[in-house]
């Protein structure tokens, strides 16, 4: 395969997807424009703001720094899938209750990032939470409410795990 246009076959939110794309199309643009999954956002295209965070093969990545072409054969999860499956329901509820989002643009990336932090099962300190979300830019909240919400979910999950 040595073309400007590629065929890819991948799984997105559990659904098989087969598309023909330009090689230069980023993963996040592919999700948003080809698949109309607009929950992942484009904020900078430098890999700095984290608004494009999605999951590829189970780990968070910058959707603006991966090509869709690289995802042939891959398993991709976006906020829509992770939301519909109920995986992050407690995080979503905590964010909503604590108002850990205002405009919501950073929120899908923030939720996926938070979920990755909490998936180890440990209760991170506030410093550790801040460190883990340090690659997700939020202009609205000032981060305090987000830290509160993630901390509360970590405690709740650990509590119910006992």
């Amino acid at each position, binding site marked *: *395969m*040595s*073309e*400007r246009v*590629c065929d890819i076959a991948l799984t997105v939110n559990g659904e098989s997807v087969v598309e023909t794309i*330009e*090689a*230069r199309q*980023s993963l996040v*643009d592919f999700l948003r424009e080809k698949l109309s999954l607009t929950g992942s956002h484009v904020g900078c*295209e*430098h*890999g700095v703001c*984290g608004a494009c*965070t999605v999951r590829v093969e189970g*780990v*968070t*990545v*910058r959707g*603006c*720094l*991966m*090509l869709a*072409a*690289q995802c042939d054969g891959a398993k991709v999860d976006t906020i829509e899938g992770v939301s519909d499956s109920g995986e992050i329901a407690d995080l979503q509820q905590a964010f909503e209750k604590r108002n850990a989002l205002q405009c919501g643009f950073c929120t899908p990336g923030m939720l996926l*990032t938070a979920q*990755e*932090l909490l998936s180890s099962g440990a209760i991170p300190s506030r410093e550790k939470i801040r*460190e*883990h979300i*340090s*690659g*997700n830019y939020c202009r609205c909240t000032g981060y305090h409410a987000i830290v509160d919400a993630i901390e509360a979910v970590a405690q709740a999950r650990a509590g119910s795990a006992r």
Partner: protein
Amino acid sequence: MKPAPFAYARAKSVEHAIELLAHPEARLLAGGQSLIATLNMRLSAPKLLIDLNGINGLSVIKASDGTVEIGALTRHCEAERSAEIAKYAPLIALAMPHIGHAAIRNRGTLGGSIAFADPAAELPACLVALGGEVEIAGGHGMRAVKADDFFKGLFETSLGSRDVLTSIRIPAATSGSRAGFAEFARRHGDYAMVGLAATAEANGRGLKNVRLAFFGVGDMPMRAKKAEAALGADDFDGAVSALGSDLDPRDDVQATAATKKHLAGVLLRRVAKQLLEPRA
């Protein structure tokens, strides 16, 4: 910003990658965390992108015979979790949390970072501090290049247009090995304003074979050789003042040359303390 159009090819092996590199305007894609940002901004417009990520066997971490070999496609997050690296290459373990953010570390690779050679990046300096070497596969076979010789200028390395960096090799740490790392960055995860990766060996209560690799102070990692000698002679104040001639940074958007020099001295004192601590 969308990249200029390019063709995309998936290399099946290192040899295949070298074949594909015959294209005059090709670039290798590893983690992509630096490259794709560059392409998005159209700072670079290659006509062919060669994806290395499908090549098997390039992400093995192996410690044997006093050497740690790390495959070039080892992801930063793999290195972060690696018990071998924690034990035999503690300097790299110290540097890892400073590299970008979790999502970046999930994709970025050690080989990619070293090949890209950003002057403010952590891993090139670590390689220099460790006195390591890189293994390069090229049109004429394999060769090893020592870290001190590998970095040549701003984003410039020994890698030729048909070379593929396949692994890095560093001397495995022993009980007498010391490592120190510190950087000043305006925000956690940013490229460093100034950073220092350092190794040494215990020498009684002092140090010998000190290697100090500063980053963010020049076009490439800078060995501060006079300072190294002074530290080896227990002269900490002397080491700090030696930086005045060892380093010649330029002003940049984040800091003036004078500030960088001053911060280099502050880092040196902090890292020297780390070097003096026996291994845990």
